[in-house]
């Protein structure tokens, strides 16, 4: 520890020093030397999300994809990204993906490309980037991520990072192989040349890293899927390590509005920060400083602040790029099967001078397909003592910071905590004390901010500032209210429906029994009809069908919501047809069946879905037969 301390005065207390091992101050001073960030992170790679091979693989993919999306969006290009993860043989014969320990990750984008001179520092110098010094929302913040991923690859496999980049069809593509000099935190170029590259514009980065490929929670697959939910404007092709190809078509054709760079807002600025800003300012007067270096401070307001406390307008939000309710709905609807979807974007708020926006979404239910599947499972009559199926699955919380899914440390995150202490019971969802609500439910929360306060450098959880917690809570409550309204409405219709149903079911039994009691001399049809008429009258007749929305009533009073019933979909379903002819929504939306279009080979996910759909329809046909 001692030689890490830059101040030698602390170690010169002779009273505590045992004599024989005494070291002179000069000798000690000679040992003191600077530590490069690269060296620091080599020893502390867990701080950046490289604690274990599985997580490391995810972090590498994540950093590369985040960079690609940031670049595309900043340049105003609808992102088209290809992610490829391949198992690499480490000496011996190639291993199956689940057992391999070495992977090659290639991420290609259609972004603006990187100019030749910038390629080495961007990929092989820690704390080098465009995003740190400005207050503008982006996925990356510190300029560590991609270089750290490259460094991790270099440390574990010895292989350099390979980059191909091209800025326009008119300029050549550049190929680089770079490594990081960990002592100096400087890039070392192993190879650079101009090459012929098929893509007219974009960047491709390839890394070879030690890792482990395993599906499930916090896997690369989950990251990709959650990324698509929050970024429906992205077209992504994912080649898994298993050799599977998953196509995620673009489902929302508007690029999020480009966020602008801003200055800090006076609310919540801390004294130390203020002092630092005062030192750095070019202004000569206090009011000039206030007006020049802060957001929302006009010269007149500056005069007022200089004299007394005052009210200032909320920070500008054009520095933020929230996903938007329609896009969240679209993302949830396309990727998660459910019966009810809703989305809420909160107005901007401020923590510690940083503006932020909280957005929340909900997907509830199992979706018509799954509901049908579970109904099929129950087709066997239950024997005595066989329990009715009662699932106690808890809701899933998917967390995002600046559109990037957060997959680790859920319980340390402000989002998770806010989801916990929202009283979901008020909205018709059961919830045990200190637990997430129970039920088939996905809770989506996104925090967009110029500076997301992460609890660590590996960006896994959002720190719990009161303002953030409050905003998340408000957003979740609004979602909850809408869900509650939906559930109540459905419950009312359902109980009516059920009443009719049970009477209809039992009428058969009662009539049959009466007929047997009467020695088979009963006009069963007549009795059945009389009872059925009474059943209809007593349960509100046609009303039930209306309540069940069979007659096409919309999700009244529920803004930004989608309701899916076996009969169809209500509410605004923002779907992009122009670019996604192969888009098969998980809910079997009508537009899915529409296009006979191109003879495109259904791939990966879509193929699986199509198969599931075929099976369901076969099963339906069987039941009817």
């Amino acid at each position, binding site marked *: 520890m001692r030689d890490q301390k830059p101040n030698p005065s602390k170690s010169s207390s002779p009273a505590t020093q045992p004599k024989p091992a005494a070291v002179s101050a000069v000798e000690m001073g000679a040992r003191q030397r600077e530590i490069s960030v690269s060296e620091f992170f080599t020893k502390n790679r867990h701080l950046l999300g490289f604690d274990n091979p599985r997580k490391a693989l995810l972090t590498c993919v994540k950093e590369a994809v985040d960079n690609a999306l940031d670049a595309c969006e900043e340049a105003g290009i609808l992102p088209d990204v290809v992610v490829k993860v391949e198992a690499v043989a480490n000496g011996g014969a190639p291993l199956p993906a689940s057992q391999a320990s070495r992977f090659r990750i290639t991420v290609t984008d259609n972004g603006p490309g990187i100019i030749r001179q910038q390629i080495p520092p961007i990929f092989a110098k820690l704390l080098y980037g465009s995003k740190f010094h400005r207050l503008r929302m982006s996925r990356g913040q510190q300029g560590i991520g991609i270089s750290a991923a490259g460094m991790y690859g270099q440390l574990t496999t010895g292989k350099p990072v390979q980059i191909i980049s091209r800025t326009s069809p008119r300029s050549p593509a550049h190929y680089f192989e770079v490594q990081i000099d960990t002592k100096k935190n400087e890039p070392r170029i192993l190879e650079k040349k101009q090459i012929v590259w098929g893509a007219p514009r974009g960047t491709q980065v390839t890394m070879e890293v030690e890792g482990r490929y395993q599906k499930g929670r916090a896997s690369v697959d989950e990251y990709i899927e959650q990324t698509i939910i929050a970024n429906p404007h992205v077209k992504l092709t994912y080649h898994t390590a298993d050799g599977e190809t998953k196509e995620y078509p673009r489902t929302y054709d508007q690029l999020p509005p480009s966020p602008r760079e801003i200055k800090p807002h006076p609310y919540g600025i801390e004294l130390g920060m203020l002092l630092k800003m005062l030192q750095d300012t070019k202004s000569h007067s206090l009011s000039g400083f206030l007006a020049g270096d802060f957001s929302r401070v006009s010269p007149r307001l500056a005069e007022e602040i200089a004299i007394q406390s005052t009210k200032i307008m909320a920070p500008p939000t054009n520095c933020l790029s929230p996903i938007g309710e329609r896009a969240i709905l679209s993302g949830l609807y396309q990727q998660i099967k459910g019966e009810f979807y809703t989305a809420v974007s909160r107005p901007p708020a401020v923590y510690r001078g940083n503006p932020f926006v909280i957005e929340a979404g909900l997907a509830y239910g199992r979706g018509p397909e799954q509901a049908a599947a579970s109904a099929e499972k129950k087709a066997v009559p*239950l024997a005595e003592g066989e329990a009715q199926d009662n699932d106690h699955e808890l809701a899933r919380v998917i967390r995002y910071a600046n559109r990037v899914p957060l997959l680790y440390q859920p319980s340390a995150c402000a989002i998770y905590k806010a989801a916990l202490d929202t009283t979901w019971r008020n909205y018709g969802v059961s919830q045990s004390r200190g637990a997430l609500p129970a039920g088939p439910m996905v809770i989506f929360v996104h925090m967009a901010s110029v500076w997301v306060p992460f609890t660590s450098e590996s960006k896994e959880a959002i720190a719990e500032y009161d303002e953030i917690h409050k905003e998340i809570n408000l957003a979740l409550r609004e979602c909850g209210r809408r869900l509650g309204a939906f559930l109540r409405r459905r419950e009312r219709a359902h109980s009516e429906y059920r009443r009719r149903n049970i009477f209809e079911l039992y009428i058969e039994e009662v009539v049959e029994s009466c007929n047997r*009691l009467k020695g088979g001399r009963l006009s069963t049809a007549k009795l059945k009809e009389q009872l059925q008429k009474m059943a209809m009258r007593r349960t509100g007749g046609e009303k039930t069908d209306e309540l069940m929305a069979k007659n096409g009533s919309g999700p009244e009073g529920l803004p930004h919501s989608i309701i899916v019933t076996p009969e169809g979909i209500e509410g605004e379903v923002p779907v992009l047809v122009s670019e996604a002819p192969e888009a098969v929504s998980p809910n079997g939306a009508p537009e899915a069946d529409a296009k006979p279009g191109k003879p495109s080979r259904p791939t990966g996910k879509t193929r699986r879905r199509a198969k599931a759909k075929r099976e369901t329809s076969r099963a339906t046909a069987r039941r009817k037969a």
Partner: protein
Amino acid sequence: MTRPRKTSAVEKKLVGVADVVITAAQRRKDPTLAIPIRALSNVSFNERRGLIEMGKRKQARSFFNVGMAKKFMQTVLVADALCELQRANLTTSLREIYYRTKHTIKDSHENTLDTQDESDPLIEDLEVTLAALREELHVRAENAGSIVGPLVLVDDGDRVDCAKLGKGGYSVPSIVEPEYLQIKKCTADFVLLVEKGTQWNRLSEDKFWRRYNCILLTGNGQPPRGVRRLARRLHEEKQLPVYVLVDNDPWGYYIYSVIKQGSINLAFESQRMAIPKAKFVGLSSADPEAYGLPRNVGIKLNDKDVARARELLGYTWFQKKSWQEEIKRMLSSGLKYELDALANKDFQYLTKKYLPRKLKERDWLD
């Protein structure tokens, strides 16, 4: 219908359930069965007759009520099954009724019944609603009783001499109505109804019945209907006094009261089952002192025992001064005694000392 057959009264009653549905449907009314309530709130103790009688309160079971629809349907289903028994002239068990009526409801994955717990009360409902005994409905219970003594019965035409059946005796069938079981000859002086099989075995082995010229009857715990009905018939037809020997605990007291006044649940059958003149010979809470049973063969009353004893103190048919004293004495001692505890003094203490002295001293409670 292959051959014409006389419709029994019970069958007519069962068909009446179908008529309720048909008539209501014609009048566009909700089909409803009025079922007498089988609970303490709807029974009263007729002091003059010494019987627990069922009150007039009834519950409506309607079909067009979400909470009752299934039960209504099940009731009609059980009535149908019971009618089938009548027509085929068969007897069956509660469990077989359950299996007979269980099936999946058309076009659903719902069972008509899920457990026997659902069908058993429905049979009792029909018994009270139609005022038909379970025996008349051809539903039988297990043969759970034994009888031995100077008695000749005729069962299905077979002569059964209960004095010549060794120490095992005759197994009392569930249905002992005169159509099925006739009392041919009886020379006994009284009936001794013992709660537990072990004490009955002791008395039977010791040929107590021969020495005291009595009939020994047991129901192995709460006596089943066959045993109660047979005791009642011996009491009624042969004018035999009935003495009851049970454990000294609240459950023993209650067994005695069921034999004597009838049960709350099946109060409507009291008139055919109860023996208002039955006497309680023991084990009394006064016996440990009178017969010198040491305290350490007693068992501490648990909370349930105490609660049950307090309930008994409240029942109108336990209001006699002697009974209040009896129960309060047990409560104040804080102990209960099993009949088996008499073996502490001698294996044959029950046969040779206890019962002879009880009978000699006429030491019993009414």
